[in-house]
């Protein structure tokens, strides 16, 4: 993992008022706190936390997957949310990784480490949390 690179990407988010942290919980994750979500869905919360695993070899390997708290109301409604890709413990909570693959023909374009990072993955997450079933 390129810690320096990830921290730089998270700093870009912070400058845009989005808080995200690098967590080391067995493996490494980026935790995006309070992502605006569900604006068009009055029954859903207006924000949610999302966890994303740091891929082995990052940035050589593409960022993939996204996790929500196991009891999140978004989980059954986001793309891939019903297709669990694993349960992880982080930040004192239990998370379920959803089958969300924006850089694998999932709408985010092919992975380009010179353009993409955890700062641009945030844009993918916004769209993921907006387009609900």
């Amino acid at each position, binding site marked *: 993992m390129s810690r320096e690179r990830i921290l730089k990407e998270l700093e870009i988010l912070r400058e845009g008022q989005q808080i995200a942290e690098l967590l080391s919980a067995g493996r490494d994750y980026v935790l995006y706190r309070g992502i605006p979500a569900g604006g068009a869905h009055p029954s859903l919360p207006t924000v949610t936390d999302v966890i994303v695993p740091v891929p082995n*070899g990052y940035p050589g390997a593409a960022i993939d997957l996204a996790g929500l708290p196991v009891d999140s109301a978004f989980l059954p409604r986001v793309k891939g949310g019903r297709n669990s890709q694993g349960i992880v413990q982080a930040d004192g909570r239990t998370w379920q990784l959803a089958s969300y693959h924006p850089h694998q023909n999932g709408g985010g374009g092919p992975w380009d480490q010179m353009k993409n990072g955890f700062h641009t993955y945030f844009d993918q997450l916004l769209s993921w949390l907006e387009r609900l079933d």
Partner: protein
Amino acid sequence: MRTSAIVRCAAPEWNTLREILFSRYPELEWATFARFGWRETTDQLVVTLATIDPPSGSDLDDRVGHVAISEPYSLRMALGAEKHSLAVGVIHSHPENCPPVASAIDDDMDSYYSSYLEGFAPDRPYISLIASTVRGDLSLGGRIFWRGEWLPVQHFAVERTPSTTWASQKPVNRQGRTRERTRRLASAFGDEAADRLRRSTVAVIGAGGTGSAAIETLARAGVGKLIIVDPESIGESNLERVHGSCPDHVRDGISKVALAKEHVRAIDDSCVVQGFVGSLPQQEVVDALVTADVALGCTDQQHSRLALSDIAIRYLIPAIDCGVLLEGKDGKVTAQVIQLVRLLAADPCVLCRGMINPTQIAQELMTDDEREQRRRAAMEAESKGQDGNPYWHNLPQLNTVGYLTTMAGALAAGYVIGWLAGRFDPPFERLQMNLVASYFDVTDNEQTPRPQCSCRRIRGWADQGNVDALVTPPRHWPTARLV
């Protein structure tokens, strides 16, 4: 405890430097400030020339024969250092046939700048280098002030430019006598070339079919030190390709690195071998690699190729990446391709060259459990008529045969010998040849860097460019083990 230093320089910077330093040659000296990246290994400080900040106007006093640097030039460099993360140093020339050994004036200058720059950019090395020609030889010497001590430069690695390093007031490691075993090579390239090979270190990443052929060729040519890296043990299917392997090695479960070491010892026990059971870019492996004069990439692993490209650019290590490919159709072999890719510091990186598949890298670097989980998810998706590719791509096992890998490895080793001896350069950027096509269908693919790629920006930045590292070692890998 670091006791000495290595200085590395790429060809574009050296060409600029040479013009500046020798602009008043042969009688008068000249100088320039420069910026350097660095990396501390367990016993050495490796310093890489990143940028030259040449003098202009009255920055240097041209009325005197020695170097006299003006205060505004010094101040400009010191203030500049507050805005970048690189180390700063002074490089100057000595008159022709005056060895690159510090004079009393140089001592005063180094004492002054090591303290002066510390005030502006603390916790960075101060580098002082001297260049001259002694009896027609490019001769380089220097020292580095780091953590309160002066480290002598024990080795200069200037890309494609043979040079003699001076330390302790004399040339380092001159052999002076050609060995009988390399007499034919010496008669082809000269005694001096054989001597350079004896003083050289070559890193070979991958000790399989291609790597073992390269290792054997380099050991027989009289290369002084080999750094060999491979994570695997010899398997039965390797016997057809790996030089020096026999069924006993398979039975004993010996690592490819241990086998290579044993094989080199049998060929020439004076060749020093540093072997790692490990992979790029593990830190222990990188520590060793940055001390090499040249590196050869001999694996079909994409992460290793990406890491080698990154290291070639940031640590200024000339490298060649080798690959082979065998294709067939309707019972006929249609292609037997050898690819050699030159990776010099100023060449486009492998990302710019479109040689990298991030999906393959992701799959190479997963844990066994992750791979299994992904394969299962792909099968499940496909069983439902969905696309399994987001979970797992079934990448074909590359077919290869011993004569092809031997040819690729020996060819690449030949170009390494040419580089080290200073006698010839690879006449290609990305060579592909097909052994079963007419006239081998040789192609060379010159490519230009992508404008947004970091490879244009971080040449020679060493560890100070870590934020732009192209690939990193996964946590689950076992620590690299020195054999």
